[in-house]
C-alpha cells in the first residue's frame, strides 16, 4: 500500500493537481507517526501508511492556502464531506487520497475504540483509493450491534448518576483546548470561549467553567461530528468525549434520520429549515 500511496502522491504533485500533500511520516525513527506536508515529488518517500497513522489530517485543510491532497481514512473522509457541506472547503480544491483502513492503534498498541465499531473501512468520498491487501472481515451487523451498546450503557443510568459521572470527568479538564484544536470541524475564527463581552464561559479551569466548555463543545458539534474520535484520543486527562459525541449522534439520527459526513449534497439538519417544519418557532 505504501508504494502505491507514494506513487499516487508523486503523480498528483507532478500533474499540478495539488501543490502539497498532507500525509503521515515516521516520528523520529519510532514506529509512531507524525503529520507531514510534502511539496516536492522527491519527498514522497517520507510518506508512510500503517496502523500507527491515527491522525485525522483533514484538520489541516482549513489552514491550507493552496490546492492540497490529503491522505484520508474512512472516518477522516467524513470530515471532508462535512467541510464541503459547510462551505469551508471547495471540492475541487482538495484531492482526497482515500486509504482502506483496517484498524488503528493507540500509543500503547491497543486498537482504538472507534475502530472497533467502524463502518467506513473504505472512505465514502475520494479521488484516489489505495486498497488494502488484507481487508477487514467484520460484518456490518456485528459492528452496528457493538455501537448501540456503547451508548446504551450510560443512557440506562439515572440522570443524577449521569450527572455525577460527567462532573467527575469535567473536573479533570485542564482547558488546554486540544479537543477543539484537533477537531476538523471546530473552525470558528473566534471560539465562544474567547469571547469576553459577554463572557459566556468562565475561562479558568473551575468545575463550572469546565462543564460549560465541554457541553458547548459537544452541542456545537451535534449533527456535524463525524466521530473521528480525535478529541478523545488527544485529551491529556482522558475525558471520554466520544460518549458525548455518540449520544448526540444518536439523538440526531432519531430526530432527523441523519448521519453526518456521508453525503456532500445533503443539508445538515441544524443548518437547514423547511416551510413544513412541525415546530412553529422555526417557520
Amino acid at each position: 500500500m505504501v508504494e502505491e500511496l507514494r506513487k499516487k502522491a508523486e503523480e498528483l504533485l507532478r500533474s499540478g493537481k495539488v501543490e502539497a500533500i498532507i500525509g503521515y511520516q515516521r516520528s523520529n525513527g519510532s514506529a509512531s507517526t507524525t503529520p507531514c506536508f510534502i511539496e516536492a515529488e522527491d519527498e514522497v518517500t517520507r510518506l508512510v501508511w500503517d496502523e500507527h497513522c491515527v491522525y485525522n489530517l483533514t484538520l489541516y485543510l482549513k489552514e491550507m492556502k493552496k490546492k492540497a491532497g490529503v491522505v484520508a481514512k474512512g472516518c477522516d473522509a467524513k470530515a471532508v464531506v462535512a467541510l464541503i457541506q459547510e462551505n469551508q472547503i471547495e471540492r475541487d480544491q482538495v484531492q482526497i487520497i482515500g486509504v482502506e483502513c483496517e484498524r488503528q492503534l493507540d500509543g500503547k498498541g491497543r486498537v482504538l475504540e472507534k475502530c472497533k465499531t467502524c463502518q467506513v473501512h473504505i472512505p465514502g468520498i475520494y479521488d484516489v483509493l489505495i486498497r488494502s491487501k488484507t481487508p477487514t472481515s467484520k460484518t456490518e451487523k456485528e459492528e452496528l450491534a457493538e455501537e448501540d451498546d456503547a451508548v446504551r450503557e450510560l443512557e440506562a443510568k439515572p440522570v443524577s448518576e449521569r450527572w455525577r459521572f460527567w462532573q467527575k470527568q469535567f473536573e479533570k479538564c485542564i482547558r488546554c483546548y486540544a479537543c477543539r484544536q484537533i477537531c476538523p470541524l471546530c473552525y470558528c475564527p473566534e471560539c465562544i470561549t474567547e469571547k469576553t463581552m459577554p463572557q459566556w464561559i468562565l475561562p479558568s479551569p473551575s468545575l463550572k467553567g469546565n462543564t460549560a466548555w465541554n457541553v458547548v463543545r459537544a452541542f456545537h458539534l451535534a449533527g456535524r461530528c463525524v466521530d473521528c474520535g480525535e478529541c478523545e484520543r488527544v485529551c491529556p486527562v482522558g475525558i471520554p468525549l466520544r460518549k458525548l459525541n455518540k449520544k448526540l449522534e444518536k439523538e440526531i439520527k432519531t430526530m432527523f434520520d441523519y448521519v453526518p459526513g456521508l453525503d456532500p449534497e445533503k443539508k445538515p439538519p441544524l443548518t437547514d429549515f423547511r416551510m413544513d417544519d412541525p415546530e412553529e418557532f422555526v417557520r
Partner: protein
Amino acid sequence: MKRLLKKDELEKMVADLMENYDVIAPVLKEELIAFQPITRTDQILWDYPNSLKPVKEFFLPPREVLFRFKQGKAEPMSPAPKKRLIWGSRPCDARSLLLLDKVFLDETKDIYYFEKRENTLLIGLSCSDPQESCFCTSFGSGPHSKEGLDLLMTHLKDGTFVVESNSPRGEELVKGRGRVVNTKDEERQEKVKEEAEGKIERALQPDSFLEKLVNGFGSPYWDKACLQCISCGICRYLCPTCHCFDIADEDSERVRFWDACSFPNFTKMTSGENPRHTKRERFKQWYNHKFNYFKQNHGVFLCVGCGRCLRSCPVKIDFREVLDRIPAQTASPGGKG
C-alpha cells in the same frame, strides 16, 4: 548525611509526617499518575515513570483565587499556612521550581507563590528508569540530582532506599531513622545512578539552540516548522517550567490561571491588535522563550528535560528535532520576525 531506610521505615516516616504536614504524593488516579494529598501510605506509588502534570501545580495552581470581592469590598485570601510536604518528586520537577523561583521570587516577590514555596518541603525520588523521551542530563540535572530537594531517596532495588539530606529541614526529617550508610551501600547507590544515567542516550546541545534561535529569528524555516502544530495548550500546561498565567474575575472571585502562548488570545490587546498574529509567531515564541530569552535574561535555559512535551503532544512534534533543524545562519535576515 546519607541514611539507609527500608521501605516500611519510609512508610512509617510518611505516616509520622502526616501528623504535621499535608502530604502530597504520586498516586494512580483513573489510569493517570497524579500528585495529590494522601491520607494513607498505601496510596503512594514507589515506582512510576513521571506524573502527567508536574509538581508546579502546587506552587502555581491551574486555578488560584487571589481574592474575593463583595459589594465593593475585597476580601484578601489569607494564604494557608498549613505546612506541606511533597513526597516522591522526580529531580527534574524539583529543578523546575528553582527556575520558577527566578520568575516569581527574584525581582518582585509573588506572595502567593512565595508562601507555598516557604511552606513546602520537597522529598525527591531518584529515577531508576528514565524514558526514551527524558533528557535531564542535557540541562545540568540528572536522574539522581539533589538540586532543589530537601531529601533525595534512591531505591537500591531491594526494598531499601538511600536517603540523602540536602537541607537542614531535610536532615531534621530523617534524623534518627534507619541507619547510617556504609561504603557498600554507597557503592550500590553509585551503580544504580550510573545505570540510570546510562539509559539517557540522547544528549542535546542547548548552547547551539541559543545561537540558532538568535540568528534564525526571521528565518523562513519557521513557516514550515509550525505546520504540524495544532495550537493547543498541552505542551505549555504540562511543562514544569512554563509559567504564564491570565487573570479574570469569575463570579465574585479574582482568579489567576494557566495560560498558553499557543493561543491566539494570549497576546491579543484590547485595541484588537495582536503582535503574534499567526501560528508561526506563536509556535516560535515557545522555543525562543525557553532557549533564547530566558537564557539571556537569567543565564539558564528554561527547560529541565522532563520530556512531557514530547510524550503528550497530540501530533508527536519532537521539539528536539524542531530545534536541531533550525538552519545555522550567521546573521538574522530580519524581515518577518
